[in-house]
């Protein structure tokens, strides 16, 4: 038996999956301040009258970290930057406690300016005085050489033991200094709280005699073991939308192009499956307006859902970007999007007469016929969704390209179908599909497909390598590993791939993903001859390989 629980913004959903079937589901409102309570309420619902020994795997997706950061409840965190030359330092500031220090590295990893120990110590004293206990350290080009970041961290160990420090090269060892800085910063901010959450879960599971493997869903639709998640809490942001995307994939299990739309209470999350594979966000997850280096699926959120209020705005009918309660047919007081679809398409959701009554009142107020009011709302809903979907296609098609063949073989996204997820999908998706002239799928389990997606998702791993044979070094992400390589100018792509693959195996094994390490793919293989004068002095390789999002081996689909 496999259990998946998705703690969303409005509802917490859970499923129990066994041998091709969903045998149990649960849905509870999410208590914003007490995420652990919501989680356990759903879990208890699911395992009631069940032999917990049968549970093999539990996967949780949660908005905890997203909420912590969004609501400013994260712990005060200092950010130490070694920005060197380039953009004005002010552009790199995050929060009030940003410090700019001397020290500079160039793109080949060569030290240009040393750090000033005295200056660092003064900075440490200042941070200590302010009572700040979390510190993120980020140096420009630390992904090519993290010596200076480490030196600053060592000084903290020496002069301010109690401080929790995170260096950027460790959390993300790829180019883009501000994204690395933001990733390190938000990691330092949430590390302890996440640890606390993990400890709570662990003891709650113990109380319930659940001894199965426990995983956390990441923003890229892959899982990570609960114990390892404590090092990278930020990977859990936006795991809710990732659960939906994986849910869309889980209920279809084919290699078609699809648009997955999760229509929730007040938002619709749109994502794309390209030949069955979830599309990644090319710039990583955006947290509080800052780009980060966290691998995430590309998800567009539209402030529009089944519970979105229908109201009069300056005399004309509009759909509000918020909810005031349930749909009238489900016991609410005011009409919502669900009520409109209920009336217009005779869906018989809940008490249909209540839908009519609530809308009739509003129609009177607006001086419109009920039919016309419904038509207008449907138009608004459909056009907002189609516009968002089309923009998503366009954004993907217009991603920058750096090679001739990429430009010549331009991208076109032609969807084969729409996949509806979430409680309101059954009402809205058929209409949307007709307007877009596409087939659609709304599965019986669509309302909890997100939890299913979490339950059966497999681990993912992306490994990036930068090899500079003239310097004889190799830099690896994740982990910020720096390793020697032979300084041979004859170094071949074959050898570079082999090194990359070894790292994938090594890191993958540490993450307990032995079962999936054969299923990798190289996404980037670039090699550059370095010519100085008329001689080749070495080569630079850029390599990326990945175990992409997918499902655990025993999952073959759901009836």
């Amino acid at each position: 038996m496999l259990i998946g629980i998705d703690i969303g913004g409005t509802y917490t959903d859970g499923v129990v999956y066994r041998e091709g079937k969903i045998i149990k589901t649960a849905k509870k409102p999410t208590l914003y301040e007490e995420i652990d309570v919501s989680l356990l309420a759903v879990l208890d619902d699911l395992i009631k009258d069940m032999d917990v020994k049968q549970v093999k795997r539990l996967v949780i997706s949660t908005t905890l970290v997203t909420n912590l950061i969004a609501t400013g409840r994260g712990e005060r965190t200092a950010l130490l930057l070694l920005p060197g030359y380039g953009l004005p330092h002010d552009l790199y500031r995050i929060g009030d406690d940003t410090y700019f220090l001397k020290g500079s590295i160039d793109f080949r990893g060569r030290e240009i300016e040393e750090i000033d120990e005295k200056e660092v110590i003064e900075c440490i004293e200042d941070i200590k005085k302010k009572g700040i206990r979390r510190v993120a350290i980020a140096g420009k080009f630390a992904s090519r050489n993290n010596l200076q970041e480490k030196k600053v961290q060592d000084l903290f160990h020496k002069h301010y033991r109690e401080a929790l420090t995170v260096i950027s090269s460790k959390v993300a060892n790829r180019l883009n200094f501000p994204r690395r800085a933001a990733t390190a910063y938000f990691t330092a901010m949430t590390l302890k709280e996440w640890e606390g959450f993990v400890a709570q879960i662990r003891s709650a599971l113990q109380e319930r005699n659940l001894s199965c493997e426990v995983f956390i869903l990441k923003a890229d639709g892959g899982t990570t073991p609960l114990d390892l998640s404590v090092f990278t809490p930020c990977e859990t942001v936006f795991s809710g939308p990732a659960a939906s995307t994986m849910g869309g994939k889980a209920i279809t299990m084919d290699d078609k192009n699809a648009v997955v739309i999760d229509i929730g209470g007040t938002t619709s999350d749109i994502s794309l499956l390209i030949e069955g594979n979830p599309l990644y966000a090319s710039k990583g997850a955006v947290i509080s307006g800052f780009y980060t280096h966290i691998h995430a699926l590309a998800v567009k959120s539209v402030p529009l859902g089944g519970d979105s209020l229908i109201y009069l705005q300056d005399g004309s009918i509009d759909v509000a970007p918020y909810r005031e309660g349930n749909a009238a047919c489900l016991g609410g007081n005011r009409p919502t999007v669900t009520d409109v679809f209920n009336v217009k398409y005779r869906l018989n959701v809940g008490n249909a007469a209540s839908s009519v009554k609530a809308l009739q009142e509003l129609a009177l107020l607006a001086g419109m016929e009920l039919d016309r009011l419904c038509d207008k709302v449907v138009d608004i809903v459909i056009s907002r969704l189609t516009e968002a979907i089309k923009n998503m296609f366009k954004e993907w098609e217009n991603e920058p390209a750096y090679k001739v063949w990429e430009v010549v073989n331009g991208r076109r996204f032609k969807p084969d179908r729409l996949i509806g997820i979430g409680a309101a999908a059954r009402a809205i998706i058929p209409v949307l599909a007709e307007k877009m002239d596409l087939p659609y799928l709304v599965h019986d389990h669509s309302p909890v497909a997100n939890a299913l997606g979490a339950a059966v998702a497999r681990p993912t791993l992306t490994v990036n390598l930068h090899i500079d044979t003239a310097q004889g070094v190799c830099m690896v992400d994740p982990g910020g590993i720096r390793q020697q390589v032979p300084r041979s100018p004859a170094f071949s792509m074959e050898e570079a791939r082999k090194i990359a693959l070894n790292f994938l195996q090594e890191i993958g094994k540490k993450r307990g993903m032995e079962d999936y390490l054969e299923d990798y793919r190289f996404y980037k293989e670039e090699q550059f001859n370095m010519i100085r004068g008329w001689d080749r002095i070495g080569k630079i390789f850029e390599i990326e390989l990945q175990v992409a999002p997918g499902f655990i081996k025993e999952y073959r689909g759901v009836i």
Partner: protein
Amino acid sequence: MMKPTGVIFFPAFDWAISPTHPEREERLLYTRDQLFEEGIMDLPHIKEYKPELASFKDVLRVHFCVPSVEERIIEAHLVAAGSALKLADAFLAGEIKNGFAIVRPPGHHAMTVSHANRGFCDINNEAIMIEYVRKKYGIKKVAIVDTDVHHGDGTQEIYYNDPDVLFISFHQDGRTLYPGTGFTSEAGWGRGYGTTINIPLPPRTSDEGIHYVLDNLVLPILEDFKPDLVVNSAGQDNHYTDPLADMCFTAQGYALLNKKLKPDIAVLEGGYSVETALPYVNMGIIMAMAGLDFSNLKEPDYSQNRLRNGSSHLDYLKKLVEKQLFLYRNREEVVNKQYAENKNRFYVEQKSIFYDTEYLYEMQNNKLRLCPECQGYRVIESTARHRDGITYNVGCISIPVNCCRNCHDEARAVYIDMQEKARYDMVYLQDRIDDRYYSFHVQKGIEKVW
């Protein structure tokens, strides 16, 4: 909200002239590292665009490709030129306040007739963009400021007789550097006299010297000319570390130049100091165009003292500036006098052009129609023996976008006449008025129209 600066970064990581050539894949590698690490593309000040392919027709609006556009032009060229077109479209649609195409391969040595690659260039990216916006948007007056260390001889040749296109090039003196041209005496042809301004700078000219020329010559001329579009051929080899040239310009100097020049569209040209100049100069230009403070931008080995010029150097520049200002200010007078005195229907000129990359010579016979109404059409007879051993004799007729009706008719008649002559292998007509481009295979009697 302030409009962003459009950037197309196209390093062509899968294309090179040859593995060890200066114009190779590695050229923009460290620039990529620098731009990506700075995170400048993530800023709201910048909008990154995807390159697009230019069409053959876009190329033919500028070039006569021998023997044919299909055989001469490869996709890498079309992407570089297409990137400039894309940014021009975005600029004229009002999406961006200005645009920078960081693309390779470069283009400013490519002339009207293109037999082969010369000076690392096959087709002229800026000219293709300019003819495109003139046709599509009716843009009339354009200024091109070429800040590459090499004389932009291709762009100069294309617009040599066009009074609506001002071409200003400063570069290391042609007596000391490829392509060996760009002297003050090259000032334009026919009605284009005085709208070609060459500024041959002595070797080791620094920020101080270049900014003197910019402030006292380039900017005043631009202000007077009032172009509808300002284009910067943004070569970066005036840098003090460039391996092919011998100048002393810095990243700060380039950034400040762009801040003052305020180009609408900048297109990367040369620059072969791949590690020590390009990452910093490209950053500087983007920052300046986006209105970002660039005072924190510096090369790691930057030293202000090394980069000053002596007083005799500056005196030389002062005289140069005076001379070229005089040329520009008196241009109309000179043109009028020339047209009044010359009773011939045509100017005629013989030229030989060397293609350094592929080592071939082209002989040209140029004729410019001296028309009282317009700048006149051009007839070029060209001969060159290509690398495959085949010698091509071709006839080319070029009708400018601002051509008068008479010249238009006359030029089309010339095209028909030339088709009868067995001494040509190919005859081409570039009809920018009708936006139609013809090539006629004389022996086969087959015409192709784009």
